[in-house]
């Protein structure tokens, strides 16, 4: 489930070390919405988090359709924030502010 165990340790700088942010993104192959979502997510996390602080699993429902059935994934792309509190975000993540707030990254802004 939670992919490979983290090979990145938290808190390298002086900033308070958050738990590793575990994310899972369900995509539909290379469909436009899915591709955009992946790009947007990587960009935001890259901007706000150190590489060690987040971990992403990408599930392609075209490759593993039964997984989506089991996880009751309805639409693509769907992003799950697995680190409590669990949050489900749907869409191509183009609404940047919404995503940052939902992932609790916005507090670092300003």
């Amino acid at each position, binding site marked *: 489930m939670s992919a490979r165990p983290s090979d990145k340790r938290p808190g390298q700088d002086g900033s308070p070390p958050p738990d590793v942010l575990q994310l899972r993104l369900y995509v539909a192959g290379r469909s436009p919405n899915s591709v955009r979502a992946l790009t947007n997510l990587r960009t935001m996390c890259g901007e706000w988090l150190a590489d060690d602080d987040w971990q992403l699993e990408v599930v392609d*429902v075209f490759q593993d*359709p039964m997984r989506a059935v089991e996880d009751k994934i309805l639409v*693509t792309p769907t992003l799950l924030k697995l680190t409590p509190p669990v949050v489900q975000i749907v869409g191509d993540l183009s609404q940047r502010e919404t995503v940052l707030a939902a992932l609790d990254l916005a507090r670092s802004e300003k």
Partner: protein
Amino acid sequence: MGGQGEENIDQRQAKAPTGIQGFDQSTGGGLPRGRTSLIVGGPGSGKTVFALQTLVHGARRWGEPAIFVAFEENSRQIVANAASFGWDLPALERDNLFFLDARMALGTITAGRFDLAGMLASLGAKVDEMGARRIVFDSIDVLLLLLDDPVLERQEIYRVHDWLSETGLTGLVTARIGTVDPLQSERYGFMQYMADCVVLLTHRLEERVSLRTVRTVKYRGSSFVENEFPAVIGPAGIEVGIVEQFEPTYQASTERVSTGIKRLDHMLSGGYYRGSSVLVSGAPGTAKSTLCGTFVEAACQRGERALYISFDESASEIIRNLASVNIQLEPHVESGLLQICAVRTEARSADQHLLQLRTLIAEHKPRCIAIDPLSAMVKAGGDVAAMSMAERLLALTKSRGITLLLTSLLAGDSPEMEETPLAISTTADTWIHLSYVVRAGERNRALTIVKSRGTAHSNQVRELLLSDEGTTLTDVYAAGGEVLMGTLRWEKEEEERAARAEEKAHLRRKKKELALAEAKAKARIQAIQHEIEALRYEADRLNREDEALEARRDETEQDIRRVRQGGLPTLDVDQERPDSDPPLADNGGR
């Protein structure tokens, strides 16, 4: 023949039966197979039941595994709701019915555009895994609401439609639409364009009774009945009330079924036709139930199964009351031939009653049914419902060859004046009207046969007599255009008896007079005859006298000649012969 049979098979292959009673008939076999149908309706109109029922029947009866994608309710709720229909979903769920809970989790955040590609991919895997043939999306609008963009909505509807086309599944997509002019909304307009078949369900209350309808709005490449049909959600799911088609197979019977009243049988040339429908209308207390009683009793006496449905009284009341006029139903109830059903009318729609009746018919298999009164059965739910209800009831019994007797409450005395609220009078084959005639302080029951199709029947009004001996009709006494009954009838009878005696006496007198006149005339004829004879005799006499005179003159002349010629009489005679008038007299004289 053969060609038509093949066409029917093609037709069947092109359609996926829903197994919903009535709907498949109205669409010639069900929903388009391998295509998308849109089931639209307001909240609570039965879309989910319709869709689920189609899947359950498909899986159970025709071996077509199915997937139910639940956007609105979770699958546990649906299974629980369906339990009341006796569909036993858990048994099906193992291999043949899969529920996909597709409710967006609470608190789901939308951040940009999304689509259904992922879900369809996973559904595709599931379809392959279980070999699914049917699928339901219930309901698509919940999903579309999330998209919150008309362009995206269309795009996703296309996506679903394309996916359904590719997979070749028989798809049912339900959509909730507003109750006000539902077919005008833009969203609906687009969805219906995508669908090959659109079925509209409605639900409303009329006179506090729940009324449901089903209407096929569109059906590409197929004929269908476009009418709005009443529907019920009964104990086994939705049932659509179509007028059953029985023309091709239905054979009109010429067999007669006794009314249970000998003289009424007589008036109807032998009784009701087997498989026909009879309406008995009348005011309260005019013995409508009695006619029901005699009818079912006669049926049971012939050994036929009968069903008596009463909305007024309990079974024991009916048995007791009818026993007082010597209609004995109890032995038939005990033998099992007769089933008496007392039904409550409150808060049930006409369609629910019809549904129950259908079940009763299936269980008891009666050949004769009496419904007393039908007016109670159809009063629920407005005129339109009642009308179609009546038609469907008649079709239901006719197609099964059941003879049906219905009673209907009418306040007035004149059947033509009263608009039978069911308008069933036009559909019924025979219409008997019972009324009270009040005259000289007496109420008497009168029976009129208003119509009886295909039967020579008496048009006269008869008096219906009930007594502990039984029920009978009496002869009518028409006087001055009125029918007389009761005491008046008796008086009239006496009067007529006296009048008849007088008439006879009068006739006798008249006969005598005539005989006398005849005798006189004959005497006159005789007298004249005598006169004629006398005259003839006189004439004869005169003729004879004349001849005698002639003869004497001839003799005299001969005597004179003889005297003149003297002694040569023979020669003289020869010479003179050519002139001689009476030669014979001459010879004779010799």
